[in-house]
């Protein structure tokens, strides 16, 4: 019954998402425009100073954009927790027999499916950069994207559950989630950063997600998988599990 309820609520998330055209366009177009403008602009600036070429930076930035899409979609999908609470829908779910578990898993499944779907659409343009993932690499990519999506949806849920203001949640996104992405290696590699930044990046689970995405995308057909892939997967899996458990604990608590 929990699965039926959870999937039903997940489908609801997707239906609501697709019915809000602005949300679809915003979620897809923003990171791509961000990638193109920032990648081109920063790349050209670096190229003019003789450090790096424009095309190289666009390629470097690409896994970070995939990560940003996952982050945006997953986190923004959990804004609906606050809307559901404010509009009254949530209370109807909370009085259902397994409502609390269903709302958690429904949001996790819904947010994850949306994030995976959108990230994969962007991965389709990978061949226009310097990346040419084959079927084997795609399989690992989907797995990592899904894991990151579950983890980030859970992280968003954890913050959204006690909140009653979407404005407050947006402030939190700027304050916490975006810096989390900055410190994942999406914008710059850890190797050239200051020591304290490197330390922060080491403790950021998204760094390992970014590392896995970058490593997998750079794997050419027939080449072996990146050596540290299992390490990256282990850390992302452990972080995701911890976050889901924290969410479960949070929703089980009644006022």
């Amino acid at each position, binding site marked *: 019954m929990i699965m039926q309820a959870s999937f039903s609520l997940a489908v609801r998330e997707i239906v609501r998402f697709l019915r809000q055209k602005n949300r679809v366009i915003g979620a897809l177009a923003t990171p791509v425009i961000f990638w193109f403008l920032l990648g081109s602009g920063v790349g050209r600036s670096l190229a003019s100073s003789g450090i790096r070429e424009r095309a190289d930076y666009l390629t470097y930035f690409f896994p970070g954009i995939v990560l940003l899409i996952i982050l945006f979609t997953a986190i923004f999908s959990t804004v609906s927790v606050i809307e559901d609470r404010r509009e*009254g829908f949530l209370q109807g779910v909370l009085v259902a027999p397994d409502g609390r578990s269903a709302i958690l898993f429904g949001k996790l499944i819904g947010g994850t499916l949306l994030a995976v779907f959108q990230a994969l659409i962007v991965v389709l343009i990978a061949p226009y950069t310097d990346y040419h993932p084959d079927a084997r690499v795609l399989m690992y990519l989907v797995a990592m994207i899904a894991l990151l999506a579950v983890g980030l949806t859970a992280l968003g849920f954890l913050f959204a559950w006690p909140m009653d203001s979407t404005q407050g949640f947006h402030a939190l996104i700027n304050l916490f989630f975006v810096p989390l992405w900055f410190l994942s290696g999406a914008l710059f590699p850890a190797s050239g950063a200051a020591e304290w930044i490197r330390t922060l990046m080491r403790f950021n689970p998204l760094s390992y997600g970014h590392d896995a995405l970058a490593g997998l995308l750079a794997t050419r057909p027939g080449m072996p998988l990146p050596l540290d892939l299992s390490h990256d997967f282990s850390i992302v899996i452990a972080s995701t599990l911890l976050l889901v458990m924290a969410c479960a604990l949070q929703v089980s608590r009644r006022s």
Partner: protein
Amino acid sequence: MAGSSLCAVQADGVGYSYGRKRVLENIDLRLEEGGMFCVLGPNGSGKTTLFKLISTIFALQDGEISVAGRSLRQFPTPVRRKIGVLFQNPAVDMKLTVRENLRYHGNLYGLETYDLEKRINKNLEALGVENRGGEMVESLSGGLRRRVEIAKVLLTRPSILLMDEPTTGLDPAIRSELWSIISGIRNSRKLSVLFTTHLLEEAEPADEIMLLDQGHSVASGKVSELRSSLGKEYVRIGTYQPKKLAARIRKEGEIEVTVEPAAVKVVPLRGLAAPLAIRLWREYSKEATSVTLCRPTLEDLFLQKTGRLWSSTPGEI
């Protein structure tokens, strides 16, 4: 207590605090199977908190509540299968169609597709919204949204219907229509109904009421018994100068006179109120704007129990 088969909802010594603020104190209530119970109180009296405890949204702090013979503390999940809950703010998704809302609700309770579709059709028809199934809920009027919500809540065939101020925000005509729908459903489905309201007239049809004020139960019982406990009929004289008129009327003797805002209440200590009303009308027709023969009301009960007028309590925002 918890095992009584004739009791749909029973609360004993229920108390609740938000942090240091005590909002409910020592509340007892008993809804008989098939009965209708009203928790009546002004805004801020603790009705919604009590409702959220009974509907399992809040965890119990003090006291015990049993629903359909099961303790809420020990068996919240089985209890949830027995109750249908109608909240003050509609718990429907505005971005979905009427039918989709019902479908998601049925899935939430694990209903199988074939059975669910049958129930959806039947309920939409029973609530008179069968032609609105494909419309977005946000495009419906407040009254229709309420009907959709009732159709949704009844999908799982609850034996107990809990409603928190179900007519909030609706105009009087729609309110009356909604109550006749609820009454019809109650009779046809043998439902036990517990509801809260701050509208005195909505409490009248209930079998029993509890009058809540500042977190305390100030009176409870059958409406007719509570009324008769207030005494007999009386006369209310409308006037622009209640104090002056009261002073004059007091001289009549064998009556009890109370000054009210723009009125004087006169209770006969001996004899009937009707002849007194006629006599007062004849004698004070110049000062009186109206003379009304009144039966004790729930408003009088509130005044007697709290020393405050119902109309002086905070209104609906």
